[in-house]
């Protein structure tokens, strides 16, 4: 069940700040601890930047969800960029096709509980992450 839901258009790296602020708002509303809020917002920042830098543009969908008795914050990032040919390699720490540190995807996976990625060359990339309270 979706308790709260927001979506943010990502067109440039400036929108990363907007994604961070909206994510923080939902994490506070969901009653997450400060450490959890920080982890979720940091993961959101990494994934939003990936959309801006590698996907060109895309959407972040942020939802506060409830399943049985637990509450979670789910972040879905979708872009229409070039896609990822080898997801296994892209998840490795230190791997980057850009100028970054290569910590974005792998780091976001460590900071969140659930992680799902679908991508193919020419088809864009969709990353869905959830942290449960």
């Amino acid at each position, binding site marked *: 069940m979706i308790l709260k839901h927001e979506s943010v258009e990502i067109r440039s790296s400036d929108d990363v700040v907007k994604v961070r602020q909206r994510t923080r708002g939902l994490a506070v509303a969901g009653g997450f601890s400060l450490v959890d809020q920080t*982890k979720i917002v940091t993961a959101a920042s990494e994934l939003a930047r990936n959309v801006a830098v590698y996907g060109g543009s895309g959407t972040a969908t942020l939802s506060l969800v409830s399943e049985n008795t637990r509450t979670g914050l789910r972040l879905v990032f979708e872009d229409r960029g070039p896609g990822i040919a080898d997801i296994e390699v892209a998840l490795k720490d230190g791997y980057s096709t850009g100028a970054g540190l290569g910590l974005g995807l792998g780091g976001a996976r460590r900071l969140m509980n659930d992680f799902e990625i679908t991508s193919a060359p020419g088809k864009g990339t969709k990353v869905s992450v959830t942290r449960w309270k």
Partner: protein
Amino acid sequence: MEKIPILKMGRFLLVTIQVDMHDRLAMTLQEDLTDRIVKDNARGVLIDISSLEIVDSFIGRILGSIASMSRMLDAETVVVGMQPAVAITMVELGLSLAGVRTALNVEKAMEILHSLAPAGEEATIHDTQT
């Protein structure tokens, strides 16, 4: 354009990051700081991040670059006031800020800077300049 102010305090430069730093702002800070180190003949840089709610890989990389660039320009960098939740998150993310000195508060950071760049050194520089 929005900029992060850089204050001069004796031989040191002081930066307090008080905004949710977007990527371009961080890049500008890096350029401005290196310019000011040279222009002001600064021996140290103190960066207060106590207001920063997160440090992601981008901001972490910028902090690392600032420290490396400063060192090449003969200035030491100390990052001050990291929130505990930020430290926990950074380690999990995989960022260690290797090569960046940290201090819990401004007072301790100033002690570090003073011990790394003793005042006597500057006096000799002034002597040769006059």
